[in-house]
Structure formats: structure tokens, C-alpha cells
């Protein structure tokens, strides 16, 4: 039969992680909570709000003390209409996986229900809010998780978040000769202008009005 990590296991793992995080980083503006997904299994995850100046310390603690070994995803979001202290947000999704090297000709067959302690797979969401401005900057965690390297490249390329200390930063999805400061997922680049539905109504652009229409020449 198929197996799965139970809700009690995950809940206890998430609670103990939140307890150590809150104890270690109490009073420094870092706030971690246990949240639950809303779909069928209501699985818990740990949500951590961090400030950019504390991020490296928290990341090291996560990696070496609660064995979060997998940096799976970095998402930047632009909030041009947001409050002054939250113009940008960087969300990191990390996983804890019970994976270790095996001896030759052997393998590890985990039984989900019997996992305990730091072996229980768990999901972490780290949120960093950045102030409004043209140069959102967070420290790079490339040196802590190798997997963060290309995720950070992508986030800089598409959203324009600067990762301080990242080595070998370059365009990955946009052309290498894209103009500087061009990051297409920033909100000033719009998909529709003047309410004109270009993609559906007028793919060739024949219906577009010339820029000087109505002007006396």
C-alpha cells in the first residue's frame, strides 16, 4: 500500500521547528509560525518573516541546525502600490528531505509513518519584505545552498531583485543583451495598455490608432 507522512508527524515537526526558531531569534523582528495549506490533507508548513539584515544568520541556522537541505524556489514580487515598507517581497520555498548518501549496493527505504525528528519532510516559506525603491537588495544564499544559485539568477533576471554577494550573476531566460534595468515581471511593464485587448481582438495591430490621431498637422 502507498504510504504518506501523517498530519500529526508534520504538525509536531513544524511546531518544534517554530519553537527553536523563535527561541533562537527572539526579539530580532523574526517571526515564525505554523500555517496550514487549505487543500485536502491540510498539511502544515513553517512560515518565517525575516528582515534582510538577519537573513543570512537565519539561513545558516536553518541549514545546519534544523537540516533544511533543499532550496527549491525563489520568488520575487513587485508591489508598486504597496506600503512604503513593502514595495517588494522575496519568498523562498525550502524543503527538508531525509536524503543522505548510501553505501554501495544498498539503499535507504524510508517508511513515512516511522520517520521522526529532523527526518520528517517539511516545507518552509521564508518571506522578506523590502522597502519601496529602485534597488531592492537581499543577501545571496548561494554559498549556503548551491541550489539557490540559478534560482537567484532567475529572480534577478525576471524581477530585478539584487542578490548581494552572488557570484557570476547573468541573464538566464531573457536575452543576454537585454537593456539594463529591464526586468519584465516588474509591474510597470503591462500586458494591456489603455484597456485594449491586443492578444484577442487585434493580433495584427491593424485596429490600433496612430499616435498622432486627432492632431492638426
Amino acid at each position, binding site marked *: 500500500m*502507498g504510504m504518506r507522512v501523517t498530519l500529526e508527524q508534520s504538525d509536531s515537526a513544524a511546531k518544534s521547528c517554530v519553537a527553536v526558531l523563535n527561541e533562537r531569534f527572539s526579539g530580532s523582528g523574526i517571526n515564525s509560525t505554523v500555517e496550514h495549506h487549505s487543500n485536502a490533507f491540510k498539511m502544515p508548513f513553517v512560515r518565517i518573516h525575516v528582515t534582510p539584515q538577519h537573513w543570512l544568520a537565519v539561513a545558516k541556522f536553518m541549514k545546519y541546525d534544523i537540516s533544511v537541505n533543499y532550496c527549491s524556489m525563489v520568488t520575487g*514580487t513587485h508591489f508598486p502600490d504597496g506600503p512604503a515598507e513593502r514595495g517588494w517581497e522575496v*519568498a523562498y520555498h525550502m524543503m527538508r528531505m531525509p536524503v*543522505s548518501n548510501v553505501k554501495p549496493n544498498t*539503499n535507504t527505504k524510508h517508511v513515512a509513518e516511522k520517520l521522526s525528528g529532523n527526518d520528517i519532510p517539511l516545507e518552509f516559506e521564508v518571506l522578506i519584505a523590502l522597502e519601496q525603491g529602485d534597488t531592492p537588495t537581499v543577501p545571496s544564499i548561494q554559498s549556503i545552498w548551491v541550489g539557490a544559485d*540559478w*534560482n537567484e539568477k532567475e529572480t534577478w533576471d525576471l524581477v530585478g531583485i539584487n542578490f548581494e554577494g552572488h557570484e557570476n550573476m547573468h541573464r538566464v531566460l531573457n536575452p543576454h543583451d537585454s537593456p539594463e534595468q529591464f526586468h519584465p*515581471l516588474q509591474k510597470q*511593464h503591462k500586458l494591456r495598455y489603455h484597456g485594449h485587448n491586443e492578444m484577442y481582438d487585434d493580433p495584427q495591430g491593424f485596429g490600433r490608432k496612430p499616435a498622432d490621431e486627432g492632431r492638426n498637422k
Partner: protein
Amino acid sequence: MAQMWITMGPQHPMTHGLWTLRVKVDGETIVDTDAELGYIHRGVEKICEDRDFTQITPYCDRLCYVSAMTWANSYIYAAEDLLEAEVPERAEFIRLISAELQRLASHLMWLGAFGPDIGSLTLMTWCMRDREMFLDLLQELGGSRMHYNYPRIGGVKRDIPVGFATRMIAKIKLFEKRIEEYEMLLDESTIWLVRLQGVGYTKAEDMVEAGVSGPNVRAAGVNYDVRWAHPYSVYDQVDWEPAVEKPTSVKGADCYDRYRVRMEEMRQSSKMILDAIEKIPGGKNTNYSAGDEMIMTKAPTRAPEGATGFSNYECTRGASQFYIKGGGEGRGKNPYRLSIRSPMFITIPYVAKTMIGYKIADIPAIMGSFDPCIGETDR
């Protein structure tokens, strides 16, 4: 000897898509590599900001041209997390079956493309022949051979057709024998073994550290699988166990292990499908009309400001993840930001670095064994 850079791709058979691998060679030996991606970047994440939640599904189908169903499902679970939709159990079983059928088709496409890389052109024709069976089954569900647009937020588009179960069981039973044929063809072929064994070693911990997941990590001897570790759907109710290999060296899994783990995974998927179709609530030969409460629950269409949805899904190449922020323009009808995590985007640069030290002739074997797909990589 002088060192020089060689550019392989974007039009090289090794790439399985469009990307460039630049290799620095010293004689025959690779001393440095560099991956260049982005040739088919379509800006899906930006397009999705202007579409409502149902309209996004076909875009997610088109993320990967060999496993559309798993990517659409992956998005749907994130959207359901965001919109707090409930899914009837029958729909979950149908989704499981459709995703596993897609996994079979995708692994066959991989094997079919990997064979010619290694020098076995016969394999391509065999795999395409068998893949056709599963494409026909998926066509019965979604109406199309490639992009199905099948799952919906809160259920599935329509129920399994009458007679689908019988046809599927017959095809899976046939396919289980065909897997043995493949193994007879490949495991007894000296060329296959010489090209794959002892080539492209990767250790489990290194891969996890670098962000590689899925069958590539299971090949290195750990049965970590998103389907049990971050459970979704009804995988705990059907009979299966994660495919896992026993690598023969301290250096980790080689290309041969990665081939073996995918063969085993095809067996497990077949087993899972046969079990799921018997256990499906409402019976395997009933056909509920589209929108019936057995297969579809009405879900909200607007997401409140500040709500987020996340899904972690075992795609055919590793963990695919979606992260959606609600409350965009159109008062929550569209996502404010939709972010896609593609397993291959992280894997390809990692694999490029593991090639250092091997010979040029090993590149197709190493790269092909990781199953690259550029549609999802470039998004």
C-alpha cells in the same frame, strides 16, 4: 595540449530541446562547462497575471510538451490551495490515473529519445509504438493528443468514458510485458552497458544540495518521493512503492542507475493505475455527466488579496512547484503573481558541472539520462 571551447547546441541531438552547452576540452577530456538557457522563454508567468484562474490551465499544459497532464495538475493543486476548493474523491482518482498515464508516456518518450543518443535506434520505434497506447487513452480523457486541458479547479473536465477502464487495463497488462522486452533488449546489449555503466556519477546529498529531485535522486538510493513526503491526491490509498535503485559505487548513481530507476517507475505506475481503477468510487464503468458532483465541486473564482497558494508535485522529472499570490487586477480574478519552479531549470546547470572529467563522447549519455525537457525549463 591547448584547451578550447566547443559549442554544442542549440541544434544538437544531445540537447533534447533548444539550449546550448559550451564545453571546454583538453583533448577529449572536459575541463569546464557552461549552460545557456532561455531560447524558448515565452513569459508564461507574466501572461498568467492577465488570465483568470481557469484560463491558466492550458498555459500550464504547454509548459512541457511531453508531460502536459502532470504540469496542469501541478498548477491545479496550487490554485485549489489558493481558492480553498474541495475535490470529490472520484475526481482525485481520475487525476491520479491521468497523471500516471502521462508519466508512462513521458518516460517512454525519454527512453525513446535516450536510445538513439546511445546508439540504439530500434528503441525509438519501440517506445513510440507503446507511447501511442497511452496517448490514445489520454485523448479519450482530454480530447487531444498532447495538450489536454483536463483538470479543473475543484475536479476534472469530464468523467472517464464508458469502456475506458477495459481498454486501459488491457493496454497496461500488455505494457507490463513490453517492459520486460525492453529490459531484454537493453540489459543484454553490450553497447548499452558500456556506454552507461560507470559514467556520470552523482551522489544523493550533492544532488539535493544542488536542487535536483525526483527519479534522479531515487537512482542514488533514497526513496524520497513528493507523493508520500508532501502528500496530495490519493496516493496513500493505492498499491505502490517509490522506485529506488542500489547504486554500485561510493561515487553515487551512474547513468545506468538512472535508466533502471525509470524502468522501475514505469512498473510502479502501471501497478498504481491497475489498482486505482478498481478502487475508484462510483465504479469504473459508470460515466457521470460533466459537472456532476461526483467529479466536480463548484469552486470560488476570486482569490482575496494577500492569500497565497502553493503546490509541491511529483512531476515526471522531479518536484514541480507553483506559488500563486491572489488579488491582482480584476479584483482577485487573476493572480497577482504566479511563480513556477521547474525541476529541469535547476538540474541542467548542475548536470553540466558533473560532466567535468568525462570524455566528450559521454555527454549525450550523461545529459540524456537526466531527462531534460526545455519547455518547462525556459517557461
